[in-house]
């Protein structure tokens, strides 16, 4: 299964012949031949169209990736990036157009089929079989019929270690995956994609879960792999600075249409943002209404003194006043997640005092925290920020303090009205308020999560990584929504983020967190990115 593309050199003539032999080709992927077609692209999409009920996710898009280059795909959420990736890996079949590999039209009927053709995905999620060793995870899908489950043989070990070397990882193949850190697992996933010979590596937001240092390392590896010239790398990311650093070519998608493919020299950050976004955000701001329902922080100041959580948060003190945005900057693992979780009652804290307007609050559960006016929008958006199977309307009706039920009886009319109102105000783009929230794009999910959170009429919003994995346009919108809540409704917002540029000039005050402690505090309006990074890095 290692050698991939069925590049039948004899069959490079015409589609008619192709069609006649298609059935046979599928059953015998042995049509290997030394000659590749004249096509320099490892994989090429020609006029691909993909439709979903009511949406044309990709509209006649052409795309190609060559060996020895990194080809980045950028666009807002919902622009069609993930659809493109799924077509490339075989998870979706196109409704029109064709996929060509080595001069041959191919049909990728499943991810398994794609893998047979040498197309490997490094998925966005860091996931592994925790009960298996790292070595087993890396080799998964390549084993001979007889293998030891919990050990790797010497020859297998060599393969795994060679793959680790290529990604610059120093890992013990016999350690359980469940005992690895996220960044170690991410490297193992990339090793997994590389361990068998292949021609195309698809990276879906590979750095989203990594610390800045690990992300840096990953980009270095990608550059090395590119320079080896054996694989074509397709790179999807929202982090434009990364994209501009690593990509040789960039394809911009907007609303399922191809805006264009550019060489690195042709674009800069500003131009890319302009190409990606279609809406002039300035115009839309006028349409927004004030959020009348939100109570605001009438209850006084949120005061945290000496909070500690079992080794993850050490002696953290901070204050959030009504009408103030307080930022926490830190890399992954700095401890802001547990800090916010402790404030919101998701986990217990060991020591410290939390008071709101002088009244002590010891949130034992999220229910208590919500009642006291603390509402969390967590980083695990898909699993905790929204209820993915419930519709937008039902998500907005969820908060018990939202006033959308009478003695437990749901006021469905009021629900629909409220949901419609917020869909318009927050510009939640989807096929209406009855769509399951899980089907929305990341940015729209975040808006639903925010809308849900403020239904509980909080005094303080705790936002964890609010802009992670969402596109520039949506980031801007989320920011506007929060600004509005803070300035008009006098809410207090505590925003923790590993994307520092989203805090700068937004938060009034930025605390930098490192290894569970606050190591510095700077003015949010004069903060400097490199200064924050220097403080935040261990």
């Amino acid at each position: 299964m290692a050698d991939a593309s069925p590049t039948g050199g004899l069959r490079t003539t015409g589609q008619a012949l192709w069609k006649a032999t298609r059935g046979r080709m599928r059953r015998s992927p042995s049509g290997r031949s030394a000659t590749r077609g004249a096509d320099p692209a490892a994989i090429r999409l020609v006029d691909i169209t993909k439709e979903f009920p009511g949406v044309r996710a990709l509209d006649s898009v052409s795309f190609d990736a060559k060996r020895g280059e990194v080809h980045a795909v950028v666009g807002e959420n919902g622009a069609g990036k993930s659809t493109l990736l799924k077509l490339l890996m075989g998870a979706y079949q196109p409704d029109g157009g064709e996929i060509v590999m080595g001069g041959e039209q191919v049909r990728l009927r499943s991810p398994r089929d794609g893998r047979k053709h040498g197309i490997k995905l490094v998925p966005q999620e860091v996931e592994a079989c925790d009960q298996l060793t790292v070595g087993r995870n890396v080799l998964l899908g390549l084993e001979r019929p007889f293998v030891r489950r919990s050990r790797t043989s010497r020859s297998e070990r060599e393969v795994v270690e060679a793959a680790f070397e290529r990604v610059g990882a120093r890992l013990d193949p016999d350690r359980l995956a469940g005992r690895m850190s996220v960044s170690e697992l991410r490297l193992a996933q990339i090793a997994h994609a590389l361990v068998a010979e292949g021609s195309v590596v698809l990276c879906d937001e590979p750095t989203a879960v990594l610390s800045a240092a690990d992300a840096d390392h990953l980009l270095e590896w990608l550059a090395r792999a590119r320079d080896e010239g054996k694989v074509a790398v397709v790179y999807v990311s929202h982090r434009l600075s990364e994209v501009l650093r690593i990509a040789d070519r960039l394809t911009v998608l907007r609303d399922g249409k191809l805006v264009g493919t550019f060489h690195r020299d042709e674009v800069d950050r500003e131009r890319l943002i302009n190409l990606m976004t279609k809406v002039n955000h300035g115009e839309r701001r006028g349409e927004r209404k004030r959020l009348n329902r939100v109570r605001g922080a009438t209850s006084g100041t949120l005061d945290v003194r000496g909070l500690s959580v079992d080794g993850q948060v050490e002696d953290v003190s901070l204050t959030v006043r009504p009408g103030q945005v307080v930022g926490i900057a830190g890399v992954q693992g700095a401890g802001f997640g547990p800090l916010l979780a402790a404030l919101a009652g998701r986990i217990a804290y060991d020591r410290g005092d939390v008071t709101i307007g002088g009244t002590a609050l010891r949130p034992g559960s999220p229910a208590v925290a919500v009642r006291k006016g603390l509402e969390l929008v967590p980083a695990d958006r898909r699993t905790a920020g929204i209820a993915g199977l419930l519709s937008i309307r039902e998500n907005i009706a969820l908060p018990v303090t939202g006033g959308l039920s009478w003695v437990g009886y749901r006021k469905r009319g009021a629900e629909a009205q409220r949901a419609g109102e917020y869909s318009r105000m927050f510009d939640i783009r989807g096929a209406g308020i009855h769509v399951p929230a899980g089907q929305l794009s990341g940015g729209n999910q975040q808006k639903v999560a925010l809308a849900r959170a403020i239904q509980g009429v909080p005094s303080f919003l705790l936002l964890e990584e609010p802009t992670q994995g969402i596109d520039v346009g949506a980031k801007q919108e989320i920011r506007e929504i929060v600004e509005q809540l803070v300035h008009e409704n006098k809410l207090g917002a505590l925003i923790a983020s590993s994307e520092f540029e989203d805090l700068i000039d937004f938060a009034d005050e930025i605390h930098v967190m490192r290894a569970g402690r606050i190591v510095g505090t700077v003015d949010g309006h004069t903060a400097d990115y490199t200064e924050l990074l220097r403080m935040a890095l261990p």
Partner: protein
Amino acid sequence: MRALFGRLPRLESQLLVVLVLMYVVFWIWSPDVFGGSDTLEILGRQAGVLMVVAIGQMAALVVGGFDISVAATVGFASTVFALNADDYGLVPGVLLALAAGAGVGLVNGIVIARLKVNAFVATLAMLTFLIGLSNELSNGASVPISDPNLKWFGATDWGPIPATVGIAVIVIAVAYILFNRLRAGLYIYAIGGSRETARLSGIPVARYEILAYVFCSMLAAVAGVMLASRVTVGQASLGAGLELESIAAAVIGGAAIGGGRGRLLGVAIGVLILTVLTSGLEIVGVSEFTRQMTTGVVLVLAVVFNQRRNIADWSLVRRLRRRGGGGGGQAGPMREAADGPANDDV
């Protein structure tokens, strides 16, 4: 002591201690009975059938489902065996019974893996279907087998050991190869551990999921033959109660409902614990009803214990990670920790 436990994963060591302690308690309770080798032999006979079914159940659990049709499969296979044994001979009868079991597993697997029916619903439907089918085939009666050689499949001794123990040992050996030495076993663990990872690795997920259910049902069919041999009839209700007991034994032994977790040795000890408990209580004169109640309580306690164990590990992992530089600590709570050392092929 240390030499014995040093090689064992922690859970298995703990289970072994529980097993021994339990036996000692019964011994003290009733020294005349539990001091003799006869009792061990009785326990062995009892454990053999449950062992075979629980190991099959373990495959279904590890792949991420479970099979509550095992008891009905036992009855169905015994009926098929009894209907054919006298006409075509014992060995063809056994082969037909195994084929019937494989067929049941194939249908279970296809319905669950391909048609995406929930394992609970699919195997519950199979349970009632099979009881009906068995009674239809046998006209609702038990089907006698007259061949005297029948006893070799579970009623008599193979040399020094009871036949049921012998069969259980063979099954353990086969299962050991599947779970620890074959690619197929690895994939069953991978699918149960992270379906998406397995899928992205190019593993034909449905195929291996079906295999796990086929293995499960075929072992239930083996148990059907063993029981038919013991009572010399085939009957729809022969395996009654085994569905719960097999899940209980596997879970006591560390197999997780939800998949990806479970080791053969642990499940084997789990079977012995459950057998000593229920048979022990029977021998000392506790009523059947009390024993049923005990099984229920023990099952829940086993699950609670397993979950506690994971939480303990989880904080341990966090501490280790922190010592190692703190990377990825934030996402720590999102990831489930693993138990036991890596190199335990047991």
